[in-house]
Every structure is written in C-alpha cells, then in structure tokens.
C-alpha cells in the first residue's frame, strides 16, 4: 500500500484547509509586495513586531479554552487591569525596565482580583460563557471610561492639559518604558529591518511557563474539566475552582500582554481602545486551528503569525495597489469573517 498519500491527506486534514489557503494567500502577498512598491524588509520586520505585540493576547485564550470556558471574548478585563498597572507605573514615574516591570507588577493584583470575580460569574452561566464574556468585557470597558476621567491621576504626561485632570485617550510612554523589550538585544539589518529579540524572548518565556503549567497536576485537571466535567468531578476535582483558575490566568496574561503591546507601540490607549482587542486575538487562535474547546501552543504560534501577517500585508499591499486606505475595513472583514467561519464549525469540532 502506498504510504505517502494517506500521510499527505492526513497532514491536510490535521492542518486544515483554511490555514493552508491563508498561508498561500500570505505567500502571494509577499510575492506581490515588491511590485507595488512595498519594501520587503520593512514588511517582514513589521510582521515580527506585530506578532510579538499581540502574541500574548492569543496565548491568553488558551487556559480558558482548555478548561471549557470557551473563547475569552472578555479579555478586555485583563487588558483593563494592565492599563491600570501601566498608568500607575507612569504616575509613579518609573522608567526603563523598572517602568515596564513596575507596570506588570502593579497590574497583577488587579488582574487576579478581576479574574477571580469574572471567573465566579462565568461559573454561574455555564453553557453561555462566550456571550456573557462579551457583555462583561463591554461593561468593564464602559465602566472604566468613566473611571479614567474621575480617578485622581496627576502626572502631567497623562492628564488633559487644559483641565488638569482626567486621563487622555492616548498617553505616550516615551521616556518611560517605550521599546525597552524591543531594543533588548535587538538585531538590525539595514535601515528598515529590526528584529525585536527582547520582546519575542519575553513572549517565549510566557508561553513556556504556560506550557509547563498545562503539564502540571493542576493544568492537567484543568484540561480534564474542559474535556468532561463529570469525569473530573468523579476524580475529585473541583470543577468551579479549575474554571476560575483558568479565567484568572487568562486575565493575568491579558494584563501582561497589554503592557508588552504598549512598550512596543509606544502609547497607552485608554477608553474604548480595549474593545476590539479580544476579537483580533480570537480570530488569530481560530486561524491557528484551535476549536472552541481545544487549543495548543502550535495553534497560538501559527495563528498569531498568520493573522498578524495577513493584517500587515493585506492593507499595505492593497493600499499601495489601489492608492486608498482601506486597511481598517480589511482588518475587520478578515478577523470577523474568521470568527464566524470558526464558530459555525463549532459543533463539528466538538463531537
């Protein structure tokens, strides 16, 4: 029996047509780039950069998927915790690595607390987690819109100049912790290519820690809870506690993720900015081949890379070709299209 055909077939079914199509589309965009005047080295540098910026958000979805809480559409809760940490860090005037790790450290207690409450809430709505998560995310963001105005921040970098209070919508972290990770051991080739070594190392470290965690006793129990809660309960596991733990971890990763994002992007974005971020992360992990109840590190890696690649290349190539700016439209179509596609396939994956 010829052994190779089933193997290729097996590979295709495992890897999935959507991923293969997107991969070829991406390759096509890269091939087309030079012809419409988009610089190759700048594009690749851009892809790495965005991959590193957004990678942790995608990673943050893994624990909740594994524990059966579904896709964390309420990742904004974690992002808010991160925003509180980063604004506090700026308020305290921490700079450099101190500023970055200060922001992370200040964000952690909030992330754990928010995650705990959010987790308790999700335990009350088993079966509807994703819908409720989305509402929780929206509500949290809206609540914080008020809080950013009334909290007693005083740092002149952050408050509105004319009123002397209330935080601005975008706050620069220039002079605080801008690019501290990106510049760490960064590799430059020519004027347009920078490899953000530090940031990718930091992402890698987070991924490694999560990978390890999922292999511990608790991590194994978490996966079992997602796989069959009744089985887990009969083996002496507290299903609710495992689910709450997964939500806390997800929220913490979201908080760390936004600080990483800020140091690379250069700004703290407040108010409604966190709203869209969960959707991009969800789209990425789904492109990466995760389902609503199973996700692996490979899904994160492949998904974040393909999705960010697509987001970088599609607008720049299409804009240059058409001479109009439709990047935002393309981004919305791609990410929401993927989410819909993946959710309609949900039942099939689950059985």
């Amino acid at each position: 029996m010829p052994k190779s055909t089933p193997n290729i077939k097996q590979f295709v079914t495992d890897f999935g047509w959507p991923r293969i199509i997107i991969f070829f589309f991406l390759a096509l965009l890269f091939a087309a780039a030079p012809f419409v005047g988009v610089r190759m080295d700048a594009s690749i540098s851009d892809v790495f950069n965005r991959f590193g910026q957004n990678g942790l958000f995608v990673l943050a979805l893994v624990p909740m998927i594994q524990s059966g809480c579904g896709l964390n559409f309420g990742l904004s809760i974690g992002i808010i915790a991160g925003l509180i940490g980063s604004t506090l860090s700026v308020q305290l005037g921490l700079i450099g690595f101190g500023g970055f790790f200060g922001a992370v450290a200040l964000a952690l207690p909030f992330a754990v607390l928010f995650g705990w409450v959010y987790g308790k809430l999700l335990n009350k709505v088993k079966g509807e987690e994703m819908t409720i998560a989305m509402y929780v995310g929206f509500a949290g963001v809206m609540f914080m819109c008020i809080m950013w105005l009334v909290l007693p921040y005083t740092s002149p970098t952050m408050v509105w100049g004319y009123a002397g209070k209330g935080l601005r919508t975008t706050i620069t972290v220039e002079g605080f912790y801008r690019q501290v990770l990106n510049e760490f051991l960064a590799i430059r080739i020519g004027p347009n290519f920078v490899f953000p070594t530090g940031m990718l190392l930091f992402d890698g470290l987070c991924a490694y820690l999560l990978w390890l965690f999922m292999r511990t006793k608790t991590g194994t129990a978490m996966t079992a809870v997602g796989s069959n809660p009744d089985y887990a309960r009969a083996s002496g596991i507290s299903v609710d506690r495992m689910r709450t733990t997964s939500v806390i971890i997800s929220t913490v990763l979201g908080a760390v993720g936004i600080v990483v994002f800020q140091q690379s992007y250069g700004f703290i974005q407040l108010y409604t900015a966190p709203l869209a971020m969960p959707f991009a992360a969800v789209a990425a992990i789904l492109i990466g081949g995760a389902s609503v109840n199973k996700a692996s590190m490979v899904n994160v890696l492949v998904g974040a890379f393909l999705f960010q690649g697509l987001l970088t290349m599609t607008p720049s190539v299409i804009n240059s070709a058409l001479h109009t700016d439709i990047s935002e439209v393309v981004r919305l179509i791609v990410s929401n299209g993927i989410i819909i596609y993946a959710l309609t396939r949900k039942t099939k994956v689950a059985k």
Partner: protein
Amino acid sequence: MGQQGPILSVEHVSKEFYGNVVLNDVCFELKAGEILGLVGENGAGKTTLMRILFGMPVIAETGGYKGRICLDGQEVRFSSPFDALDSGIGMVHQEFSLIPGFTTTENIVLNRESMRPSILNDVFGDRMSVLDRPDMRKRAEAAIAKLGVKLDPDLLISEMPVGHKQFTEIAREITRTKTRILVLDEPTAVLTESEAEVLLAALRNIAKLGIAIIFISHRLREVVDVADRVVVLRDGLAIKDLPVAGVSVRDIASWMVGRTVAADAVAGGEGREFGDELLKVEGLWVDMPGETVRDVSFSVRKGEILGFGGLAGQGKLGIPNGIMGLYPAGGSVGLRGKGVPLDSPRAALEAGMAFVSEDRRGVGLLLDESLDWNIAFTAMQVQGAYLRPILGGLFKIRDEAGMRKLTEEYVGALDIKCTSPKQKAKELSGGNQQKICLAKAFAVKPDLLFVSEPTRGIDVGAKKLVLDTLHRYNREYGTTIVMVSSELEELRAICDRIAIVDEGRIAGILPPTAELPEFGLLMSGLAARNAREAVNA
C-alpha cells in the same frame, strides 16, 4: 417467507480506520421478518458495520468503506442517517441518542409529532400547525404497550433509569411506520434478565409483523433464544453464517474467540475468612434520578466481595454513586471506623475508595483524550502519582513515560484492543472503553473498590477476564470489592454475599449458593410485601 428475495444484502463490505482494518469482506443477507443475531468479540467490528449500514457520518469522515449494501437488490450508499431512516432502517444505538430535556413521549415521536392545524395555518401554511399533544401521547402509549413494558410517558429522559431509556429508544424506532429493518446494537446490555426477556418477546412480535431485525448482543443466550440466524464476526471477518437451530451458546462463544471457552467463570463464596469490618454504612439515602436509595445499611469486611443486585430503577446503582459523592446523599458512611463525608468525591477517593461508574461515556471517560490520560488521571490527581519534578524541583509535571508504561501494563493485563496508549478513548469499541474504566480504578490501588455493571457491553471472553481480574485483585492484593450488577449470574460467580435491593432498601442478603427462586422472590418485592402483610394480619 422462504422464496422471496432478501430485503437487505451486505456484499463484500470492508472498512479501515487509518490503516487499521476493522471489517474485511463481510457478506450476509437478511429476509423480511427474520431476526439475525450478530455476535463477535469487543472490537470485532459489529458497531462499525451497523454504522455503515445506517450512513453515520463518522464513516465518511474516516474514509468511507468498500463493498456494496443493497436494499431490495438496489445498491444504496447513505450519506446521512436521515437517508437511512427514509429507506426504512431504524437503529437503536449502543450509546443512547435521546434528548435528555424531553419527556418519553416527546422522544418517541420526535420529528414525527402529531400536528393539529391552527388558525395561523391559513396565513403561514403548515409550519404553524401546533402539536397535538393528546394524540402524541396516545401514539407513545401504543408503542410502549407494544413493547409490553411500563414507562411513564411524561417522565423526562434525564430523570430515568437506564433501562427505561433503552425501552424509550426502541419504542421510538417501532413507531416509525416505514421501518422495515430494525438494528439493535446491544439493546439488552443495560437491562436486567427479566427486562431483557420482555424485550425479546417484543422483538418476536415485531418480527411477526414482517420487520427484519439485526440483533447485537454479548449475552449469547439471548441470541440463541431470539434469533433465526446468527452471523459471527471475528477480527472483521464473517466467519460463520448459519441458522440458529441446533447451535449452542458454547459453539458461538468458541467461534467468536477462535478457541474453546471454559464454561464456568471463577467460583465464588467458598466460605472464606475475612478481616475486620472495613466499611459501615447506616441509613444511607441517595437522591439519584431513577435510582433513588431510601434507607440502606450494610457493612463490608476486609477482603470480602459484596454484591448488589435487583431490578433496574430499584436503587442498587444509587448506593455506590451516593457513597462516592456523585449525587446528593445522607446517612453515615465509615471506612475503618472513620467517617467519610458524603458530598465529596475527593474525600471518598482519598479515604481509599474508588469507583467504576456504570455511565462510562458520561462520567467514566475523557472521550477526547488519550488512553494514558484516562487511566492515570485519577491516580495523578488524588495521589500525586505520575508526576516528575523539573527545574530542580520547582514544578512537577506529568510523567509521560510513566503514564505510558502504566497504560501498556493494563492494555496487556486486560487485553485492551487499541493502536497505542495515545489513541483517543472515543475511538475504542464499547467493550474496550469499559476495560479502560476498570484500569483507571485499578490504577489508584484502592482498599475498597466499587464496580458498577463492570461487564456491561463486553464479550464472553472479556467478561471472564474482567471477573477473573476482580477476583485476582481481591485475592492477591486483598482489595475489598462492592460490585453492583444487573446480571445475577456474574454476582453469583464471584461474590461472597449478595444483597438484593428493592424500592431503595435492601430486601435481603443471600449467599451466592442460594437457589435462584430465592433471589427472584426478593427482587419481585414479594418477600417484603409478605412480611408487611404478616405484620398487618
């Protein structure tokens, strides 16, 4: 009947799952009104063959099949079970396919509900008809009556004992007016012998109406009793196809396994000496739907094997489920004189008890995970086994090599048919899944092991293996065992004492050597009623 052609013929059907050949050139025919017994060891390919016949999507997803299936001489290739239903094939699956939140009636007439036109019909057409509930109920009751059983038409499936679920499924299939071929995959596995009798009688009646039946069972006695013809599958080959007349259970068993089978299982109750009292249960009540336990007290001594028998729905299954903390329960349970809290599976496990649930797909298995996870998980969580330190002892992570070794050990010991320890549990045949559940419980090396329906759905050879294994663990490691089973025969084979549960109470405890009628008397509740009358008189 004799001269007409077959309504179903299976011609040279072969099937493989990723290179693993499961059916190999299987051929047989089925005539109207005929009952065909299909038998074979666990994993012989019975369910797979029926899935092909019924157009189940898993078959197409895993690469389709070779060969032809003909109905009335016409080749058919169903792409979904709906096509099969339309062609008059009804199927009762090995695993239930009922809607838990619906009542008996609703499940029986599902998709074929009786409709009554409403005013909205004039405007919106047929879709606005309303359900004709009284008529639905009447049809459901008729079907239930045809089976000759007692079922409450208004009970929710989720609150029913398994036996009733099984009858509901069968009732659903026979209310379809078009049904010409009825496939029953181990319909009696969850029934007690007396319930199975009722079902077999119902099948004979259905066959008289001209419906052809394919009947799969590991209880070979039933096959011999009810079938006209028997087809034996062994490792995917149909090795025998002959009329049942003149064939004995022993013959079939030896064809199935390819060697002669020892007739009797291990003998139990040779009047052994036991240690001190290990488990003491007093005034136990358990609120398990369909298996309510009202007031049960008993004690088990170290090294003993205690059996619980009784009819389905009387509460025998509730006892281990309550003690292990899976359903709300009350009363007092003491292990070695120490109280065990009743609402915590963890406390029960940590105290040294383990449980093999009767609900293997529901609570017994992680269907989407690999076999080594399934077997090692409980031991890992409760005892911290199969973990290894890394980063200088900072963390402990799964010891994959250890889990693999453990799994291979049990695959050998229990003769589990699988491709590797990394195979997903859902890909195993029903009987092999049952063995995984047993392995999981053995892996925690309990002092007291509860096993619920341990041989449900497993073949004769494997049944002996499982009973022998229980027996061996009991003798070699001194594991005390409480076994709950619908099959009196297997209780009598290995138990030292057998308690019969009736209406949520223990009706009496007998030695395994007691006469059959004595057990029957206790099960029927007559003994209790007589006693009550004696008191009243």
